[in-house]
């Protein structure tokens, strides 16, 4: 038995730009045990949503939970509030919500891929991926008015319409992006240096994914076919716009990269279908009711299942709001999948989890 060393990583670390702390116990460079500590920054958003803000204002508050996936939070909250209000929203609003969610997924997946490349020591690929990602940020700004933290979904529908010329701009930019995406897939799939760093590294088996209740691309890369878009047709008609489940079996960093890249193709198809078949209707359903009872909503954010629980009491202010971010579900799987790997691979493994502690420490 070699000498054991404990190596702390985070909360401020060059490969982990999140308020998350790992303590690796290593023996001969191999990680034999991982301890995790999360958060460090508790913002009290749930408390604020149940005390300071009226239920209609809460969608703007939860949009600040996370800059990267604010559309997921505002949509999930709007859906749970609509359930409490027994409100059916216009079909055009549902389509526009899906449009922004998929644009958001493209930029989030590309951001994750770029970090995996960077943490694998492939700086040039990091910069190329970030450069190609820029179009999605510009499109989000064109649709929502903001590059991040877009207050697009509101209780009852959406806050803005999609102009026909913006729809055409999106289609054109997606067409321009396709060869860039092909180029990225070629590099992430076949580059020998990246393969040596990513293949067979940070493996999570399907059994462990099931046992540890892992969600999102992390689970799908392990062969677990879970995607909330496959399940919640009543809230957003994903199958109508071309959703398709993507899974892999290897469960390693490479598989997680490939899942995200293949999901970008699906997102592009969904966006094209939405723009080409956007129904004509109002954008908002108005109501003067107050939320009452309990409701839950699940929504597939870029990192996996986002869960909202809300309890209303027939007043303007909610009784309780609970947010469960995807990263929260993946903490147990993240801790598990380090074991047996070289310490030198930890940075790439962390990036491949795509952790977002901003969501988790809401």
């Amino acid at each position, binding site marked *: 038995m070699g000498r054991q060393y404990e190596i702390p990583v985070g909360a401020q670390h060059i490969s982990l730009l999140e308020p998350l702390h790992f303590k690796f116990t290593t023996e001969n460079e191999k990680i034999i045990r991982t301890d995790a500590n999360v958060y460090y920054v508790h913002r009290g958003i749930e408390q604020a949503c149940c005390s300071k803000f009226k239920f209609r204002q809460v969608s703007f508050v939860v949009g600040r939970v996370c800059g990267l996936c604010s559309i997921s939070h505002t949509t999930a909250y709007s859906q749970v509030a609509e359930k409490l209000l027994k409100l059916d929203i216009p079909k055009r609003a549902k389509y526009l919500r899906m449009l922004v969610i998929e644009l958001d997924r493209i930029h989030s997946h590309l951001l994750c891929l770029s970090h995996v490349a960077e943490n694998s020591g492939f700086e040039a690929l990091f910069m190329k991926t970030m450069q190609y990602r820029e179009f999605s940020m510009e499109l989000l700004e064109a649709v929502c008015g903001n590059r991040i933290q877009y207050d697009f979904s509101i209780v009852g529908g959406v806050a803005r319409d999609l102009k026909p010329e913006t729809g055409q701009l999106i289609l054109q930019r997606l067409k321009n992006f396709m060869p860039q995406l092909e180029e990225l897939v070629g590099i992430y799939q076949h580059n020998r240096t990246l393969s040596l760093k990513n293949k067979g590294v940070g493996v999570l088996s399907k059994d462990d994914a099931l046992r540890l209740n892992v969600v999102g691309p992390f689970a799908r890369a392990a062969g677990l076919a*879970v995607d909330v878009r496959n399940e919640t047709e009543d809230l957003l008609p994903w199958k109508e716009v071309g959703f398709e489940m993507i899974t892999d079996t290897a469960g390693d960093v490479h598989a997680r990269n490939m899942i995200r890249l293949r999901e970008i193709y699906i997102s592009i198809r969904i966006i094209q279908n939405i723009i080409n078949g956007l129904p004509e209707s109002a954008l908002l359903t108005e109501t003067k009711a107050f939320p009452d009872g309990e409701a839950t909503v699940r929504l597939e954010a870029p990192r996996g299942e986002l*869960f909202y629980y809300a309890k209303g009491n027939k007043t303007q202010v909610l009784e309780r709001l609970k947010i469960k971010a995807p990263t929260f579900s993946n903490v147990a799987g993240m801790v598990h999948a380090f074991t047996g790997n070289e310490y030198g691979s930890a940075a790439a493994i962390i990036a491949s989890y795509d952790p977002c502690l901003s969501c988790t420490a809401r």
Partner: protein
Amino acid sequence: MKKIETNLADLKKDIGAFYKPELHHFIVMNAVQCGDKMEVQWFFNDYAYPGETTCFYALISPEEEVPGMKDIVASAWVAEAELVDLMNIKVENTMKGFVLEPDFESGPLLKKK
């Protein structure tokens, strides 16, 4: 959402009889203040009937200790640690300080009286 009432004595038996990792996805735990009591909730989703969320709940007093579920639901320790820190609930074999620093205000999500 299907809600199933249980109590602390039967909790492990009830959830143990229900939960199968290959059939059910554990979502999260939650707690809601109901007057002097606390409603502790365990949310599950069914892989076979994906739209269906099942919620086990137990009404407890603040001084009661909730049994830990780690031996039944392997990932439950994260949700238990969160409730200990944010709602000041006592959970078997779970210490303060995973989510928040140990000297942070106790139960920041509890309603202020």
